[in-house]
């Protein structure tokens, strides 16, 4: 199963923290730092898999990550998940974000962190892969947004905060 999904930037600043196990906040943050220190030292040419986060399950835990522009997308999984499958799932996650935010960048993740959680919840639920079809994921998000509008929230729809550099520009893998 997937134990955790993390997004942090090149400086280790967390942008999304999602755990599918009960872990107290101090440990969560320690974990982000642990994984950041493991991952950030690795050049982009080495493999996307790491073994054994000490804090989250030890040797049987695999850290699977991808680096896009300023952000690291990290999935911590147990050994029953296919490594490449998870790698693909990260790609699906990022492409879904990209579709929902129209050229996603780090700032989108900061100011719309709730959105990011909702999108993730359409892909992974309770540590299990829920959906991998991008059209389905985006449709579900649109459905949510429609419901939000109907319920009277005045979403402006202008996801106005934008930085020049998008994640897509930095796809490296």
């Amino acid at each position: 199963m997937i134990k955790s999904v993390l997004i942090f930037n090149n400086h280790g600043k967390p942008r999304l923290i999602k755990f599918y196990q009960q872990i107290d906040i101090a440990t969560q943050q320690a974990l982000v730092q642990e994984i950041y220190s493991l991952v950030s030292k690795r050049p982009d040419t080495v493999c996307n898999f790491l073994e054994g986060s000490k804090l989250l399950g030890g040797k049987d835990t695999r850290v699977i990550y991808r680096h896009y522009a300023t952000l690291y997308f990290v999935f911590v999984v147990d050994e029953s998940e296919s490594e490449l499958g998870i790698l693909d799932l990260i790609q699906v996650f990022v492409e879904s974000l990209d579709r929902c935010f129209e050229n996603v960048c780090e700032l989108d993740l900061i100011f719309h962190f709730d959105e990011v959680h909702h999108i993730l919840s359409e892909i992974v639920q309770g540590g299990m892969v829920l959906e991998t079809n991008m059209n389905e994921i985006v449709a579900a998000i649109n459905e949510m947004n429609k419901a939000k509008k109907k319920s009277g929230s005045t979403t402006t729809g202008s996801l106005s905060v934008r930085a020049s550099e998008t994640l897509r520009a930095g796809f490296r893998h």
Partner: protein
Amino acid sequence: MSAMRGLTVFIADIRNCRVRELEEKRINKEMANIRSKFKETNLNGYQKKKYVCKLLYMYILGWEIDFGHLEAVNLISSTKYSEKQIGYLAVTLLFHENSDLVRLVVNSTKKDLDDMNEINNCLALHAIANIGGREMAESLAPDVHRLLISPTSKSFVKKKAALTLLRLFRKHPDVMPVTDWAERIISLMEDYDLGVALSVTTLVLALAQSHPLEYAGCYEKAVHRLKRILIDRDYSLDYIYYKVPTPWLQVKCLRLLQYYPPPEDPKLRSDISELLQIIMGNSQDAPKNVQHSNAQNAVLFEAINLAIHLDSNSTICAQAAQLLGRFISSKETNVRYLGLETMAHLAACVDSLEPIKRHQETIMMSLRDKDISVRRRGLDLLYSMCDMTNAKVVVSELLRYLQVADYAMREEMVLKIAILAEKFATAYSWYVDIILQLISTAGEQVGEEVWFRVVQIVTNNEELQEYAAKTVLNYLGSPQYNETMVKVGGYILGEFGHLIANYPGCSPIEQFQAVHAKFNLCSLNTRALLLTTYVKFVNLFPEIKGQVLTVFNQYRYVLDSELQQRACEYLAVSTMQTDDMLQTVCEEMPPFPERESTLLLKLNQKIGDTEDKRVWFIGGKEANLERQEGLKRMASMRMNSTDSTTNNAQPSPTQQKQQPTSNPAPSQPSQTAMDLLAFDDLTISSNNNNNANVPPSPAAAVAAPIQELTKSPNEVQLPQGYELGYNQSLYTSEGVLYENAQLQVSVKSEYHGSHGRLAIYITNKSMMPLDPIRFNAPSTDKLSIQMTGDVPKKINPAEQGCLLLQVECHDMFNEIPSLLMEFNGGNDYLHLKLPVVLTKFQEPITTMDGASFFKRWNQIGGAPRENQVIITAQVPIQLETVRTLLQGFKFGLLIGVDPNPNNFVGAGVIDMGKAGGKVGVLLRLEPNLEQNMYRLTVRTPSESVSEQLRVLLERPLTFGA
């Protein structure tokens, strides 16, 4: 939410804080603000949502959020979707599954599950899957199941329901009747919607691991689904991911098939090999880009794993081996990594390692890969593919690599090298060379268990001793200091130094000087060990007695009490008039009992539990044997049971837990350590033993003649109702043993190993003194009983007398000892049974993990060494009471070993003294709460012990504690 201006401003503010202190200030200000806002009663939904969002942002930044939970709960029941959504998000991020607040959420969640609007169903399902506490599971699982199987549920609800159910099942398998649901759930694997199919297959994957027989139908369904994807090309185009149709579902199906034994049905077999061929064929396509090759390889690697599982010697596997050979030298690191990993799987199962050994050079190169992840896989593979023929090359390569290996990998490497050296040693000298070289290279990374093992092996193999002594002396001669080497050296020379004393450079004095040169650099523990070596030298080489005595003399005044004591005692022993004592004390160590290498235990310990079971283990073929055996058994059960699946609801322990195993005779991890450390205290402990064995202590010896009561207890009947106190005292260490109108007898006891002490308190409740009072507690040759201390001679009214007894177990016994009291000069007798039974000499073991337990369990095997009984309880079963009872009988209860949390699994060691020895005890108690029955299973290496334990436990389980 971009509409929430306050939130955007807050986030921007935080981002402008360049230092942590400023951020903290801003956060504290905001927290104070939100707290005061939450105190106002007239907050509208929008405001609540905004503040909860701010809290969530702070949470992501790592600030502890300890309020706002109630507001989140409020938002959930809002009619506005946007507010509900944020409410659920907050609940899933901030709530703990055991929090009392979860109770507040259950009702609104149930309402949303029943809601007509599917989008609300989804929110509720997602929240349950994330929180998943017991309370939720108990009250909501049926609703979730309903949403899953209802024909009116939309696909996007179904798939969420499937995963929610899975989550609840993983956490609380006991709250839902998953076996009753099997048929409906399996049929959903056929769903046309691939999203539903994926979720349901994931669910079935987990259920099939726990209930393989009930869910056996999923096997065909998985094959069928793969056929539809790969042969019929029947899938929605949406699910093509970079040219590969739904790789995730393919992977899940391929993995599901690995949890079952290969099928008997030839049609099914040929179908599967056709599918595997197609996947292999597809992999020949040159991938268009990275995503394409990822997806393609994800399926391919899982297919290879399945092929290995089905028949590791098939032609498909031969093809796979070739493919893997290409992969491990691929330019792409991910592919190299997975290639090595899958090859390690192949090596772990295949009969002939030849196809893999062809790539030995490449694999060794991978130890020098620039990526540590790849290096680790390379190490695993080399370890798995090692056999008699290549052991020398592999081990020496590993040794060479050890010198430059990453710090993080060294400890594991040391273990692996030590194991391989032991396993594949063809010449004794090679083993000694390798292991000493290992110790000399790795220094501090060598765990204690490595050198313990060396000492064991050298002690047990006479041919090794001379060579080992010589080599180790050589190492000690080098100027380099290495404490582990000094320990090994000290021990081996102390035991076997005399074997080489005639060689040049190995004379006694040279041996002594080599060791003593390092003495001052060593830790206190090591020095203590070396003092023992020296006293052995005195015995072996009287000619250097003078030099050694100087050292003892010097250390008589050292501050450390352990060293001082040793020095004093050794000096005393060495300077006795005759050498008899010295010779006895320094007698050569007897061979160690054969037992499993603790190294393997240590290595295997590291493989802990994960949510799904492993389908294979790193290591050679034998490491995976047990799992395969388990699957074979399952296959035969499947055949026998054909359609009646209900009878086999209880799979054997091996199926429930497939764990690595290899060598015979497991032991507690600590035992070797004890054996080896025992020599440290040789003289001291032998003195103690002598004391304990000296029959009556002087006081008792003098007092005994007067007090002696010769009448045998058997001549006096047991009083009515004695059982009550006696039975209770069997599983308590203190309590009332017997009470009548005249007196009360209570007992306090403590046990240590095969020794125990009982204090019997006799309270005189009558108006008359008990005068005189005499006792008799006869010993048997299996259990000795001695009265010690002052034996009470009279007890005045309202006073208490205390009789101290020392018991020692010498062998397995089933006869309960008696205590006879005589009052008032033979006018009155009281005969009681002493609560001294086998389990009193038991020490609980609680550190054993599931792997060691089941391995041991299986090694002992079934009857006659197993003793099993079905008990119909006469009182309602209460798990808490049973737990206390078992612990009272001094079983260590192992948590998490049995997948059914209601079952008890226990372990202990009974010390039956000199003749009986130590006997490991394993216990499994499966209560059936509906029928109020138990199944009790005891396994020990001794038939009679198993039986006796069963007898002891049967009564209290039947009639309650």
